């Protein structure tokens, strides 16, 4: 867990802005950038995989079984690329408040 923030004093900060926990950006959630969200309709999904690699945010979890699950809304920015590449209507874009 990165313990550096706006209140960290100079003596507690890593020098030169080095970071020794590679990949710690996972702690930085970008989900709140979203104005519209993808909805995953698993019944329609045939696990073709077309959407797996296109997500800029890596917000489509894919298990060892090579099957995807619902979106990781902590990071999804709602770009809609995934919905557009799905030929089966298994992903629809809707406003944040829609159910």
């Amino acid at each position, binding site marked *: 867990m990165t313990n550096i923030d706006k209140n960290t004093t100079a003596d507690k900060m890593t020098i030169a802005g080095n970071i020794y926990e590679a990949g710690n950006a996972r702690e930085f959630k970008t989900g709140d950038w979203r104005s519209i969200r993808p909805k995953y309709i698993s019944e329609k999904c045939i696990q073709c995989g077309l959407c797996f690699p296109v997500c800029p945010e890596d917000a489509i979890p894919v298990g060892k079984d*090579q099957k995807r699950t619902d979106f990781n809304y902590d990071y999804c920015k709602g770009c809609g690329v995934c919905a557009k590449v799905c030929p089966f209507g298994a992903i629809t874009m809707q406003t944040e408040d829609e159910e």
Partner: protein
Amino acid sequence: MAYNMKEIVAERPSRFTSGHRMCAGCGAPPVARMILRALKPEDHAVIANATGCMEVSSFIYPYTSWTDSYIHTAFECTAATLSGVETAYHSMKKQGKLPEDNHTKFIAFGGDGGTYDIGIQSLSGAMERGHDLTYVCYDNGAYMNTGIQRSSATPRFADTTTSPAGSVIPGKMQSRKDLTEIMEAHHLPYVAQTIAYMNFKDLYEKAEKAIYTEGPTFLNVLSPCPRGWGYPTEDLMQINKLAVETCYWPLYEVENGKYKVNYKPAKKLPIEEFLKPQKRFKHMFKPGNEWMIKEFQEEVDKRWQALLDLEEMSNKAE
């Protein structure tokens, strides 16, 4: 490993994590992620990154999206910086200062600004010196980080903030620099041009070849920018497709001088198909500007034919 997209995504966790701050729908992260998936899971990598969109949004202190070692120094010297890292690796390996089992690969990422323009001297120098590294240019056709100024990778007639489509000068008047050919002129063991298309197969396979070919290798990857090009974010993959199907961005590779065009559209689409969805080319479709589309098409045809000729010649030669 033979490319099976689902298997690779499932087996090889992303080495470019969530939590970066690129624009929604940016074309670069899927490219970077798939290129890094071409690394053997057991291999360590040092990534060097030129100042640009990707750098300022993937490592904002104290958060980094890179799970491998990463260094950013400046805009124009990414190749030189990485050449120093690579040389240190060989020197320390030679002297037994690194563990035997330390296998490190070296990959640079730069935008077209940091690669085609301000960084070309450093790139040319590092490539000529023969360092064992892979340089990846993610080409989004302008200086997007500073707000869409024209670069030498910007296509002709494009409307940018330093080549605005005006009443006298209708956008950028010069054609795109062909960096892939400039890199090939360095006689590198492997040079390729690719894009995220058709399940990323072409991208992945070229990345794997580039990373695991000894010596300096170069990948030029077209990486659309919804903001700079002016298309709806969700159309990313469609734009990629059109870039290839119109032969605006041919997929090809050069291995030790031998050209291979990896994809030849059965029916080459007219360039309008690629230009139309993008606001930066909007003015080309105004009545009276038909000549612009015509000339753009001629340029695309000329370069496509030249590429086919090179393929034929380079393979005949023996």
